[in-house]
């Protein structure tokens, strides 16, 4: 364990509104200086969690520590203004009656007001200090809100879906920019989002909030490649979930045998659920000689072309199987109705099959 206390430590946080239980014992630890993302579907309690950390709401139970300092625990509470938490709300919430510069200087003591200019410089908004918030675009407002939060040299920065209201074109740029600024500032960051791309690309560590608890907390690669269960696998991107049988570190599915990783030890001959990411499926036109021996014949049912890649839905000819989704980089070179050959490349992930999931559709595609 490192000597420095964690940047953020949540333990057993519970919160309910009326009869609805929103958070049911959230535990989460973020290393000091790390960029963490909290990923969850809408209504999963992400924003509530942020508000508990910032101190705008009180939890029913549990504790919050920021940089080793307990700010919330039974019988103990630090007021929001004493937590040194830089909060960047969803709609930026710049004070409409103050200029950009005055917004940034808002949390600064009088003698440090001049630092606002440097902060505006940091977020690339230096020329806009005298503007009023309503004269700025959405992305500009977000940057000012960030500068305002950083002004107090926060121990922790909280970002509440800060990019969701931006145009898709703008989003990537602002996202990248904000990520860079926050890394340079070196503070611990918790970003709340429902966008997996955003979480996976920005954060050092991603926590998935599901039904009021943290279902898994891991690096983006570990999370995507080795999700804790099938439901998480489907939540984190397109997934083919196949039935299979385990044997000696391998699983056998309709696609043949493949090396396999699993959260625990799988018994020989145990029925398993197997995760095959679309990018693990390769396909070529049936006439293409580069297809390996073990490839299977299939028919293209549908094609979703995205420019940089394409999702191809195919149905195996060999068996009365459910359709599979494959991802190809760039133009797949096939059309709907065409016959292709499909094969599985690389290791897969498998879990012991649960009774409830047998009726689940074999393919789960989020578009």
């Amino acid at each position, binding site marked *: 364990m490192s000597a420095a206390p964690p940047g953020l430590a949540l333990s*057993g946080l*519970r919160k*309910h*509104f*009326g*009869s609805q*239980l929103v958070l*049911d014992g959230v535990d989460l630890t973020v290393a000091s200086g790390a960029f963490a993302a909290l990923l969850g579907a809408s209504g999963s309690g992400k924003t509530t969690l942020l*508000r508990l950390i*910032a*101190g*705008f*709401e*009180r*939890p*029913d*139970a549990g504790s919050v520590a920021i940089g080793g300092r307990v700010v919330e625990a*039974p*019988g103990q509470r630090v*007021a*929001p*203004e*004493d*937590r*040194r*938490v*830089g*909060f960047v*709300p969803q*709609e930026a*919430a710049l*004070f*409409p*009656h103050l200029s950009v510069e005055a917004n940034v200087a*808002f*949390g600064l003591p009088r003698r440090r007001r001049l630092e606002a200019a440097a902060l505006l410089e940091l977020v690339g908004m230096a020329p806009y200090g005298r503007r009023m*918030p*309503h*004269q*700025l*675009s*959405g992305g500009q*407002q977000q940057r000012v809100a960030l500068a*305002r*939060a950083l*002004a*107090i040299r926060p121990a922790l920065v909280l970002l509440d879906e800060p990019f969701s*209201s931006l145009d898709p074109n703008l989003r990537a740029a602002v996202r990248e920019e904000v990520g860079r600024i926050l890394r340079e500032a070196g503070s611990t960051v918790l970003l709340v989002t429902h966008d997996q791309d955003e979480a996976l690309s920005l954060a050092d560590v991603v926590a998935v909030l599901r039904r009021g608890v943290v279902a898994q907390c891991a690096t983006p690669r570990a999370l995507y490649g080795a999700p804790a269960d099938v439901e998480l696998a489907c939540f984190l991107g397109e997934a083919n979930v196949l039935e299979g049988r385990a044997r000696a570190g391998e699983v056998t599915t309709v696609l043949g045998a493949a090396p396999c990783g699993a959260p625990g030890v799988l018994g020989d001959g145990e029925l398993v659920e197997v995760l095959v990411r679309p990018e693990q499926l390769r396909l070529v036109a049936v006439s293409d000689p580069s297809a390996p021996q073990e490839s299977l014949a299939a028919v293209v049912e549908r094609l979703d072309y995205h420019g940089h890649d394409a999702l191809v839905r195919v149905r195996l000819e060999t068996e009365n199987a459910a359709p599979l989704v494959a991802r190809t980089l760039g133009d797949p070179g096939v059309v709907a109705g065409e016959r292709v050959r499909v094969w599985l490349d690389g290791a897969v992930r498998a879990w012991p099959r649960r009774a409830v999931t047998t009726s689940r559709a074999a393919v789960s595609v989020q578009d």
Partner: protein
Amino acid sequence: MALDTRVASPRAARPARVAARATSAGKVPPLLFALALAVCVVLAGPLVFLLLEAASARDVGALVFRAFTAELLWNTARLTVAAVAACVVLGTGAAFLVERTDLPFRRFFAVAFVVPLAIPDFVVSFGWSSLSGAISGFWGALLVMSLAVYPLVYLPVAASLRNGDPAEEEVARSLGYGPWRTFLRVTLAQARIAVLGGALLCALVILAEYGAFEMLGYQTFTTEIFTELQVAFDLNGAAALSLVLVALSIVLVAGELASRGRRGAERTRAPRHPPQRHRLGRLRPIALVGATGLVAGAIGVPVATCGYWMAQATTAPLAGVSLASATAQTAGYGVAAGALAVVLASPVALLSVRYQGVLALLLERSTYLVLAVPGLVVALALSTASLRYGGGFGYQSAPLLIFAYALLFFPLALVGVRTSLAQAPRRFEEVARSLGVRQRSVFRRVTLPLVAPGLAAGFCLVFLSVVTELTATLVLRPTGVETLSTQFWSYQQNLSYAQAAPFALVMVGLAALPSVALGRYFDRLARRQLASGAVA
């Protein structure tokens, strides 16, 4: 407290606890709730008192159910219906011309169409009736009230047309609707709530009007109540007639609330671009003449008549207070009542904006009842209460009059305070606190600056209403005190038009000042919303 939830079974023991703990987001501070409740009780006071009073009168049935009541009812009803219809046509038409067509001098008309709000109905009435004796009775009353009251329809409809989503009209056009059908089915439908709301206000004003009708010799419930009260000193008779008047008003308010409830949630997003303007083409000169005629009738005639009579001032002034002292008196009352009304409105508005719940809604809605109680009835209830149960304490005293004004114009203050609170959502305060600023400083540095313009708007609305109020003032003013309106009234009653005119003009000037400020405030608000809406 926090620990034992973890120990207790997670779901079983919950319901009992919910009521106590679900509240941390929307927990209503007991003090705030108590204050809001107290305000509502105070507001309901006159109405409740009136009911008790009427119930205790022995011959209330005989007083209500007589042929005379039927005659008054007929007079009141036909004028209200006709004048409201005229106001709806004038107000909607004017709003459409200004907001949606290429009418020339639109900016001028946008202001000129609102100015009549600052001209008391009895001054419009004075302007027209002193022009010709023929302007009297039903048709006179219809003409005067339409010209004096139509801005109450114009204002909300213009706002609705300005903020309505042009996308809805564009979609209608793309679905094969012609411009005329689009106007009827989409534009008017969007403005429906505004039209209804405006029509309700017109009807309530007409029901409560005294001065204008008295001058025109047209008898309604309100003029008759006034006569019974001030001339015959018949409290029971006045109270009985008031019951019918209040019942009429309540039916109107309830009807409007019910019809509003049927439409779903209001659109919350600001439009992305201003709506298209229709080209008037050959109709342009006709529209211009119509708009000019409306302004001439509603502003030109009263102001010109007052100017004419002032120029005729040859006789020595009659006994009365000086213009300066009446102005000071009026302004003083206006300021005091405006401040009091805003203070009273604050807890109710805070409760309804910040802690939305059934209770808050109920409390807020209950204040709408005040709308249904005409000024004369408030004055009647307060003076009776003070005479009968207070041993005359406070009767015809300045505090009671100011209190009556604050009650009477409470809904106006509430509108202002509500709008202002909506400008300061809680998230600004949260952000401010997370930036390390203490709660008290947050109020001073964030909440107050955001709320202040709206509070000032509510204050201005009450102020200008007080300045132009006549009926309740006549009943409740302290002995020997004359305001601008009462002094105007007594000169006018003595046919001393030359002496009356300057009081009317100063009154209009005093009321016009806040109107201009109000116009600018709401204009800025709309533009800011348009700007931020374009970003989001």
